[in-house]
């Protein structure tokens, strides 16, 4: 086992793509850094916190990106977002086999205000354009900073989301909720609660992520290949959207009034929800198979 969580964005690329195949667009030597951070007299990064480019996955051309959670929490500024959008558009132009996004981000980089917000909306639009061109988009969430805010929404614009238990996916992050609504609403220092509400297992049970793997680079790579191969139609379809809407409505009515994730899991049919956080990935997948909210029941 080799941890995915512990790697930097630059280390993840060769661990997930075919060795030596990745060609980076706008590499750090081009020095395309954030003009906003420089104006604020804040540290910049030569790649603005994201690696974008084109590589191979089992010999097929897959475009991809990896966000660096260590630089400003992976937050999306104007340059960072533009690099993602440029890569996504080029994937359409060059008829990529698929797009693989290794996401780790707190969302919009607040220093860049509207430029960051617009950048994230452009990322979402570009992801949907890629899908409209019939190219599968797969998102991987397994970094220690999780995937929140605008990038949390972006992740759900993908055909498939792959997570580890340690990965986290949500809209507002724990500290944001606590700041806005008080510690009675959400205690961001309660790590078990944070993972119960945003972690990979909860997301898998609720149907927000489609694949759950152990925190292992080989497992993530295998899942990414399986996900890409498994997408029959990458496009948004009316039937698909209606099915998703029905799933969300059913999920909402099934869990009405429940605030504790373990109560939600019990409601889904899991007899001993307290055991869920302790299970290894494989044992969890066996337990969860019949009960996922996202599956037909």
């Amino acid at each position, binding site marked *: 086992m080799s941890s995915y969580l512990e790697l930097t964005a630059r280390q993840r690329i060769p661990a997930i793509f075919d060795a030596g195949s990745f060609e980076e667009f706008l590499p750090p030597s081009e020095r395309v850094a954030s003009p906003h951070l420089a104006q604020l007299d804040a540290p910049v990064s030569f790649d603005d916190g994201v690696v974008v480019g084109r590589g191979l996955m089992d010999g097929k051309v897959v475009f991809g990106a990896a966000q660096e959670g260590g*630089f400003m929490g992976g937050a999306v500024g104007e340059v960072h977002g533009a690099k993602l959008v440029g890569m996504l558009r080029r994937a359409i132009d060059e008829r990529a086999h698929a797009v693989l996004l290794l996401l780790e981000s707190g969302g919009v980089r607040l220093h860049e205000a509207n430029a960051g917000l617009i950048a994230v909306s452009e990322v979402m639009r570009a992801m949907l354009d890629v899908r409209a061109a019939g190219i599968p988009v797969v998102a991987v969430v397994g970094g220690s900073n999780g995937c929140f805010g605008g990038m949390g929404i972006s992740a759900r614009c993908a055909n498939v989301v792959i997570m580890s238990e340690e990965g986290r996916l949500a809209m507002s992050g724990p500290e944001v909720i606590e700041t806005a609504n008080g510690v009675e609403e959400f205690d961001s220092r309660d790590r078990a609660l944070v993972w119960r509400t945003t972690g990979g297992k909860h997301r898998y049970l609720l149907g927000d992520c489609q694949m759950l793997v152990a925190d292992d680079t080989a497992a993530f790579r295998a899942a990414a290949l399986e996900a890409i191969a498994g997408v029959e139609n990458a496009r948004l379809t009316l039937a698909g959207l209606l099915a998703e809407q029905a799933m969300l409505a059913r999920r909402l009515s099934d869990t009405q009034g429940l605030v504790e994730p373990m109560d939600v899991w019990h409601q889904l049919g899991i007899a001993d929800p307290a055991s869920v956080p302790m299970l290894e990935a494989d044992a969890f997948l066996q337990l969860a198979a019949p009960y996922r909210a996202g599956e037909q029941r």
Partner: protein
Amino acid sequence: METLHYRFEQGTRPLAGMPQLVGVVGSGNLEVLIEAAPLQGACEIEVRTAAVGFGATWQAVMADFHARWRLADARISINDMGATPAVVSLRLDQAVESLTGGAP
């Protein structure tokens, strides 16, 4: 932010290969970009650091680095977020090794 420049003449070890980036601009960490560049045998280092007022410490760490490697025609660019001297030295060595694959 503070920007510091260093130039060491008459290096003996030229660089070859693609530019490499190591490290991350996070708290107590830094990124080091290392590239081959025609500098008449010199090694130039530019440091942009969030910790203002540590020029003497940087000078000492960079002089030690040059004594270890004696790079020629090399450009090193650093974005720093308050890394300690030990971390800076390790990252610099990691950057050179990513290009040369060798020990000093």
